[in-house]
């Protein structure tokens, strides 16, 4: 079984969701800006890595967790991945792609753009981490829903 958290560039929302899933960030409280920024992959992925699947680790049930950025046309990207899995006859239940981009706020998107696109990483990264704190409950809910679904199946 593989869980793929998907967002725009595999730098913020998917990375945070994967970190929550793997227990690297707490589920019962909102982490500090420093804790978020201390994630080794937070706000690090470059535009040239959009489309790259990043392995993040295995959770307590042995499920592999990945992150994937699909860029602007993410719906098209998701459709193509589903289409390919169907084409090669892969059991769809072995892959679960979770869209995490909807969980984050404009602040994180702005911070991400400042950092990744315009190179103001010092300010952008902090702003993105601050935004993640704001949207953290939504990210936790997303991960919990995924985990609950996994336990049901």
């Amino acid at each position, binding site marked *: 079984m*593989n869980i793929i958290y998907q967002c725009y560039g595999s730098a913020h929302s998917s990375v945070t969701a994967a970190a929550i899933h793997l227990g690297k960030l707490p589920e019962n409280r909102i982490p500090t800006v420093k804790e978020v920024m201390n994630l080794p992959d937070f706000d690090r992925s470059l535009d040239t890595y*959009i*489309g*790259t*699947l990043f392995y993040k680790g295995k959770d307590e049930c042995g499920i592999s967790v*990945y992150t*994937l950025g*699909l*860029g*602007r*046309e993410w*719906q*098209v*990207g*998701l*459709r*193509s*991945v589903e*289409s*390919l*899995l169907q*084409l*090669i006859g*892969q059991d769809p239940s072995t*892959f679960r792609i979770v869209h995490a981009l909807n969980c984050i706020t404009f602040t994180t998107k702005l911070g991400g753009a400042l950092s990744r696109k315009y190179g103001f990483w010092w300010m952008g990264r902090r702003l993105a981490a601050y935004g993640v704190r704001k949207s953290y409950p939504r990210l936790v809910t997303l991960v919990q829903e995924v985990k609950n679904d996994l336990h049901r199946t």
Partner: protein
Amino acid sequence: MNRLYLSSDYGAMALVAALRDLQDEGASMAAKIQQCTLWKEDIWSTPGRIYWVGCTPSNVSIYMIGTMWKPVVLERALTHILQLAGECLLEWEMIRLNHGCKNVKSWSGFVRNYPRLIRILSERG
């Protein structure tokens, strides 16, 4: 062996390239494209879906996909997914096309926006 053509549009250019690759005799390229759009009505309205176009005499399955954005992103993502699914990457060839037919979602749109290309494809057969 599988070959997938990726174009940055709704899939029009990928279909042209895929049909050219098939190299089968008979109707002109333009007629083949029209035929394809009739058989698979949603071929240019569902970007991201992979369509089987045909099989070459050397037994290569030809597929096409419209990516709407940078084809390199989907090429990368699909390659990783194939690898994760345990498929042999040597069995898959992905060809990114540099040009796309922007805003073409139907055969009539193709004819309207690219009359010269249609003429060339009709003449060359």
